[in-house]
């Protein structure tokens, strides 16, 4: 295969995953959340149990008027949704789906790249918040900045623990080095990473920046139509990315029975299982207050992550 064709194919597959996986997660969220609350959820769009609800939503968003407030900083305001969305696309490029190099772009510093790129999210939020010229947006944006900066620390520390255990920064390398007993060894790191990841994508119960009951809709208040849809899409891609990272780093990625042929299936199954937990947590728990949010980060997650690093190092040296 000529190299350009291969490249085009890889990018196409990743864009395909980028467009379909979040929709599947979003639809699952509609239905799972509804049934967890004793409702039915969407039932009409697409005739069978509302499977086409998100397609219909997309059509609706496209039709809506695209409003930019007069006082807004137009360029920044219009750029923010794209900045929110693109980093996740870049992250999906380096996440390994299966063994034998089944990854769009193998990268030796994959983990480093992923952590750096996910951090761009905070800039998108700040851009949206500041440029909206709305005090609720600004409040939401500042909350988001405080939250994301805080949770970035346990996020990186727990990821570092795995990288230390595996002795590599390559995501494929980490999966290859992974052994089932790491589930126990890296359990605190996994919980910390997952929690911090939730906070990172601002999912309930960590949705203080959006907090629709007090901040209207936080930094999304002034957005309409397609730009708003981009932010929503970013949230769902965020779920996929966090689920995929948790899978790859802590749940052994493609490892499972017959992983030589079915590796990709194992990865997808684990990603969806983690995404289910993300939805589940949203339904089960109320939103954390701002001070509770910060306390959880600095007084619980960061010390625990440091402790995990010590344990990882000790086991590593002992082995």
């Amino acid at each position, binding site marked *: 295969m000529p190299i350009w064709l291969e490249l085009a194919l890889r990018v196409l597959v990743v864009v395909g995953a980028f467009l379909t996986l979040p929709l599947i997660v979003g639809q699952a969220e509609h239905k799972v959340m509804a049934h967890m609350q*004793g*409702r*039915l959820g969407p039932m009409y769009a697409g005739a069978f149990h509302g499977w086409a609800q998100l397609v219909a939503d997309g059509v609706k968003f496209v039709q809506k008027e695209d409003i930019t407030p007069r006082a807004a900083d137009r360029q920044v305001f219009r750029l923010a949704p794209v900045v929110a969305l693109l980093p996740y696309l870049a992250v999906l490029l380096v996440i390994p789906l299966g063994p034998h190099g089944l990854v769009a772009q193998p990268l030796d510093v994959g983990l480093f790249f992923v952590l750096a790129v996910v951090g761009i999210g905070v800039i998108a939020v700040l851009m949206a918040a500041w440029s909206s010229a709305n005090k609720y947006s600004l409040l939401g944006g500042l909350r988001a900045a405080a939250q994301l900066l805080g949770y970035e620390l346990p996020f990186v520390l727990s990821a570092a623990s795995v990288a230390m255990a595996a002795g590599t920064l390559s995501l494929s390398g980490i999966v290859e080095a992974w052994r089932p007993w790491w589930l126990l060894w890296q359990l605190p790191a996994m919980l910390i990473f997952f929690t911090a990841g939730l906070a990172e994508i601002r999912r309930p119960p960590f949705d203080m920046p959006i907090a629709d009951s007090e901040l209207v809709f936080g930094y999304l208040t002034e957005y309409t139509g397609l730009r708003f849809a981009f932010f929503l899409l970013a949230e769902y891609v965020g779920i996929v990315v966090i689920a995929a990272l948790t899978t790859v780093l802590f749940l052994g990625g493609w490892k499972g029975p017959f992983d030589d042929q079915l590796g990709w299936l194992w990865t997808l199954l684990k990603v969806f299982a983690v995404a289910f937990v993300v939805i589940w947590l949203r339904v089960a728990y109320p939103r954390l207050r701002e001070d509770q949010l910060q306390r959880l980060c600095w007084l619980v997650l960061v010390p625990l992550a440091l402790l995990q690093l010590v344990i990882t190092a000790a086991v590593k040296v002992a082995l």
Partner: protein
Amino acid sequence: MELPGKGLVKGLAVTLGTLGRRTGTQQYPDVEPDLPPRSRGVIALIEENCTVCMLCARECPDWCIYIDSHKEEVVVPGAARARQRNVLDRFAIDFSLCMYCGICVEVCPFDALHWSPEFEYAEHDIRDLLHEKDRLEEWVATVPAPPAHDHRGEPAKEQTAAAKRSGGGAA
């Protein structure tokens, strides 16, 4: 001592349990709702039973019943003088005012008014909610048979009265 995080696990268990249970939602426009007996949907009028006593119109708390009538003389052969009787010209209930208290149905001495469970008579124009006599009569077909008397409840007032009149004690 309570285990830390017990509440968190409990919350997850509740939502997971609900996920597995069937929802009670009725898909209304597709599936007819299963209404309890004596549902108050709309009031039906049996015109022949109405004597224009005006009790319903007077008892109605929000004055939503409009009755017009005139008197007619009925000449009965052999009687000393002609009798008078009321003839109903107009009977209308304004369902935009009605609060479905059912006092008119209760108070009607001649069973001219009945509850029907039909509720799908929404209108685009609020003025169309004024149901005239003919519309009210159409609802009669939808009035269900009265539910059976509770077999352990006290006997109906009519029964007790009938028993008294015929000389026996309470039935």
